[in-house]
């Protein structure tokens, strides 16, 4: 039987505010345990929450970015459950009147097609603390760090509009791109700044009724999400084809072991007994304020992609890669301003630089190679001072703090020889010293001679200590060999 997969996402986005949603304690990541958990975050008796204006503005900005209705009056509610990292015994969240209503996110697929994913709503809520099950404390207990408790989140809930892992990953990446472009989230997935819950069901192709779904919670990388979806879809199809039944349940995926397990089934699911929080009044946002935020929205990824295509003549693919991340976009623009060569700059930013940053898992903001330094390197590639191969060495030097491109080229004597007289002499010498290779070339079938050129190139590059301009050498070589025929 052919099966159709149906996927919906719930995405938790930590807002990049300085303070918590209901208290003035810091939200900075990585502080010593419990140093950023004040009496409000700890739910001390007699404390009252006061809403952070910036969190409201950030949520509204997200709503505007996805063309959603803004909840001009939004209401906080209590979602009641007991867990040690939730000191109040309830999570303050929104249910009936969320701050962001239905909206649309456009995604681009690998084949160039676009697809609209509907957003059901997005609401504001507080993050919980962290439970540690092992550490520098005695065994048999759990340790609680409440620094994260009260960090503002928006939870974005999609409609079940995705049909495979590719859709889901494209959607997740697009959300990442939107919230980082807006500057409302730092996008640091490894620090839990964005977490994905994936609802998955399958149904026979052509069936309109949805199958029973499972929810795989707390995925914090695009790769894990993709793997978890493949695994769960396969599990459901296997189960159904063996005559089994899907149980509605919450599942956990472990990215390291690549194994998922059931966490709790619907029967034991909590009844959260939501009710409006009496400690918080409705949040009312004026039309004027919404308009002010709309006017000041930063450039969004789609607009930036189009601008990169128009302004820098980039391909759709390059423009998409470079515009997805606001900081990468501005790095590219900065470097292009200095290098004057958009195409080559795009290749280096999306290629060598990104690969190196990924390999060392550091963000672009911490790149040891500045946009100006990269531009300096690109200028020397474009004016043929150095070859592509030398450029990699120079890049390595800049990365390691040895100075700017010109300094490294000078210091390492990396200049490419482009003087045609000198190159001709080199080619002549190699041809003269390798009569056997020349004879072999002459005796080779004309169609297959091209393959023999590599041998000469190798000799010439070796003779020049790698400094000959390869394009020029190959031209000169071809001319000389043609004359000898």
């Amino acid at each position, binding site marked *: 039987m052919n099966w159709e997969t149906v996927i919906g996402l719930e995405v938790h986005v930590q807002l990049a*505010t*300085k*303070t918590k949603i209901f*208290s*003035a*304690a*810091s939200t900075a990541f990585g502080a*010593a*345990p*419990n*140093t*950023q*958990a*004040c*009496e409000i975050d*700890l739910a001390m008796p007699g404390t009252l929450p*006061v*809403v*952070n*204006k*910036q*969190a*409201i503005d950030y949520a509204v900005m997200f709503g505007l970015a996805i063309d959603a209705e803004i909840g001009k*009056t939004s*209401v906080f509610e209590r979602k*009641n459950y*007991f*867990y*040690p990292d939730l000191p109040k015994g309830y999570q303050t969240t929104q249910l009936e*009147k969320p701050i962001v209503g239905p909206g649309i996110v456009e995604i681009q697929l690998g084949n160039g097609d676009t697809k609209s994913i509907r957003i059901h709503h997005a609401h504001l809520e507080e993050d919980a603390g962290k*439970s*540690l*099950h092992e*550490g*520098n*404390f*005695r065994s*048999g*207990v*759990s*340790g*609680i*760090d*409440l620094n994260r408790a009260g960090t503002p989140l928006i939870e974005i809930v999609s409609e079940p509009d995705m049909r495979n892992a590719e859709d889901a990953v494209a959607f997740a990446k697009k959300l990442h791109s939107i919230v980082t472009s807006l500057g409302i989230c730092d996008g640091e997935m490894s620090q839990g700044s964005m977490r994905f819950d994936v609802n998955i069901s399958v149904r026979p192709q052509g069936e309109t009724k949805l199958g029973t779904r499972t929810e795989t919670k707390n995925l914090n990388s695009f790769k894990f999400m993709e793997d978890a979806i493949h695994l769960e879809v396969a599990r459901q199809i296997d189960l159904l084809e063996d005559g089994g039944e899907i149980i509605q349940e919450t599942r*956990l995926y472990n990215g390291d072991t690549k194994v998922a397990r059931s*966490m709790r089934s619907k029967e034991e699911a*909590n*009844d959260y*007994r939501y009710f*409006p929080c*009496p400690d*918080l*009044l*409705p*949040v*009312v946002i004026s039309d004027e304020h919404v308009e002010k935020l709309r006017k000041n929205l930063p450039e969004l990824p789609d607009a930036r992609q189009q601008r990169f295509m128009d302004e820098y003549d980039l391909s759709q693919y390059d423009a998409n890669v470079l515009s997805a991340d606001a900081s990468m976009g501005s790095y590219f623009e900065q470097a292009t301003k200095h290098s004057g060569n958009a195409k080559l700059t795009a290749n280096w930013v999306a290629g060598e630089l990104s690969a190196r940053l990924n390999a060392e898992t550091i963000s672009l903001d911490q790149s040891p190679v500045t946009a100006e330094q990269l531009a300096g390197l690109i200028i020397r590639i474009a004016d043929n001072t150095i070859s592509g191969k030398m450029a990699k060495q120079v890049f390595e030097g800049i990365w390691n703090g040895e100075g700017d491109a010109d300094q490294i080229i000078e210091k390492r004597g990396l200049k490419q020889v482009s003087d045609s007289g000198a190159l001709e002499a080199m080619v002549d010498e190699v041809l003269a010293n390798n009569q056997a290779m020349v004879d072999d070339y002459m005796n080779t079938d004309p169609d297959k001679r091209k393959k023999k050129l590599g041998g000469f190139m190798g000799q010439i590059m070796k003779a020049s200590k790698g400094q000959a301009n390869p394009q020029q050498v190959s031209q000169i070589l071809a001319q000389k060999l043609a004359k000898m025929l």
Partner: protein
Amino acid sequence: MSIEKQTIENLATLARLAVDDERVEEISQRLGSVLELVDQLQAADTSGLSGLDHPLNETQRLREDKINKPNMREAFQAIAPDTEDDLYLVPKVID
């Protein structure tokens, strides 16, 4: 109006309240009378009235996003039942 025993037990579990078996009947009656009161309220004609989101018909005051909470971990942990290595300790939690 009375509430089923199972509902009372379920609510008690969710609220982490210990309810003695012999008190279930009494609690059922008392909670039932609260629901009767709600029924009386619901009998009132509210057509043409918009609902209140909060008993105080006011809107939320917002706070500027400025840090002004110092680290008071020592004071808070001094009154906590159990701490170690700067963490609050609780009985082992397993997901």
